[in-house]
């Protein structure tokens, strides 16, 4: 009989893994379409890091759940309502490089703080995966942050476009900090971290870069998107999964 704590831990791992995997899937769409070769390579590299991070958390969840579960089952044989990624990372980029960079930056700053705090987790596997992932995320934030500054403090056109990206994505930032009873149970056991406790630090981080980029955080945002924690996604998500899961569903015996 599985304990409530173990059930919560599995759910927690899936949330982190889903977010990284779906983010990676979106970023990987740039492969072969980057504005310049170096950025094309950068996107593939960052996607690869994120896929690697998700695999670590999926594998741990599979080990906890047992029952023949594998990382592939989580990634390829679950439907929309079972995925726990945040809505921001599933949004289509519509070939706007600045939009992708802004998304990488906003989510990356959160991931950086998350992994920094999870390194102190009482769960050895979680703290190990966090210590591994934080180095990669740090590098991604440096890269995307530089682009946010370059585009924001660039031409009138690049400034306007990245400001528009920020305006659009800002409604999706509140979800980064959403938590529920799963988090609470794990926080009380020293396994998880309190997302609310890093909100100010996150705001300080992004504000610092936006000041350099001459960008402003939209004021009077009245609507904040929500739903990832409950598996309620945007209209874009089913199409993303259809593409990502096509091969293993079409050829069920295919293996890596």
């Amino acid at each position: 009989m599985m304990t409530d704590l173990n059930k919560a831990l599995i759910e927690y791992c899936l949330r982190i893994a889903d977010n990284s995997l779906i983010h990676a899937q979106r970023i990987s769409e740039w492969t072969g379409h980057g504005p310049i070769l170096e950025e094309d390579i950068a996107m593939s590299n960052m996607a690869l890091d994120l896929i690697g991070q998700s695999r670590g958390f999926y594998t741990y969840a599979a080990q906890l759940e047992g029952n023949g579960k594998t990382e592939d089952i989580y990634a390829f044989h679950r439907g929309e309502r079972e995925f726990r990624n945040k809505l921001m990372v599933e949004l289509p980029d519509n070939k706007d490089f600045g939009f992708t960079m802004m998304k990488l930056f906003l989510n990356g700053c959160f991931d950086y703080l998350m992994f920094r705090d999870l390194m102190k987790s009482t769960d050895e596997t979680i703290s190990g995966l966090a210590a591994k992932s934080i180095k990669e995320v740090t590098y991604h934030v440096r890269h995307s942050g530089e682009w946010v500054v370059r585009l924001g403090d660039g031409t009138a056109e690049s400034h306007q476009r990245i400001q528009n990206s920020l305006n659009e994505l800002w409604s999706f930032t509140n979800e980064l900090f959403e938590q529920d009873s799963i988090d609470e149970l794990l926080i009380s056991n020293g396994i998880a971290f309190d997302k609310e406790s890093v909100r100010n630090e996150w705001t300080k981080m992004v504000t610092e870069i936006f000041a350099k980029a001459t960008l402003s955080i939209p004021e009077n945002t009245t609507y904040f998107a929500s739903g990832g924690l409950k598996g309620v996604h945007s209209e874009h998500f089913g199409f993303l999964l259809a593409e990502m899961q096509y091969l293993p569903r079409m050829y069920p015996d295919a293996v890596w």
Partner: protein
Amino acid sequence: MVTLDVREIWDLLNSIPDPEVPAISIVELGVVRDVRLTDSNVQVDITPTYSGCPALKSMEEQIRAKLLLVGLTPLIKTIYKPAWTTDWMSDETKEKLRAYGIAPPDKISFENLHPFANNDKGPVACPFCSSTDTSLTSRFGSTACKALHFCNACCQPFEQFKCH
């Protein structure tokens, strides 16, 4: 029947080149973390360089193949703690990288650990002509562990093993 001791197994693994940077071995790279003899077999712990490193699988297969040849069926385990770092490379290993044409990684410092830290370490020395008149072309290179630079002195692009 195990006929090799732990030291000999380490030596054997040290003969396996990194599939992406064959100038150094997987032991020198720091991927092999531990070798333990059990009653009837051997357990090898490995750790990925980057979370998504596609070469890890190939390294695992090469370890298995190498040990099968001497009659061992290893149990290979991937571990994440402690997280891999380029600081595990010896000076000798870094020199091998340089001689191969890849600028070796520096020691880890504060700017590697915070995304907004000022990176004022200066340019990376060219592995071909040693000039420091170089510039960063791209933070990301042909593999997860490398960045691209250009040497203005000898007009050569070169790769740097990222400090990680």
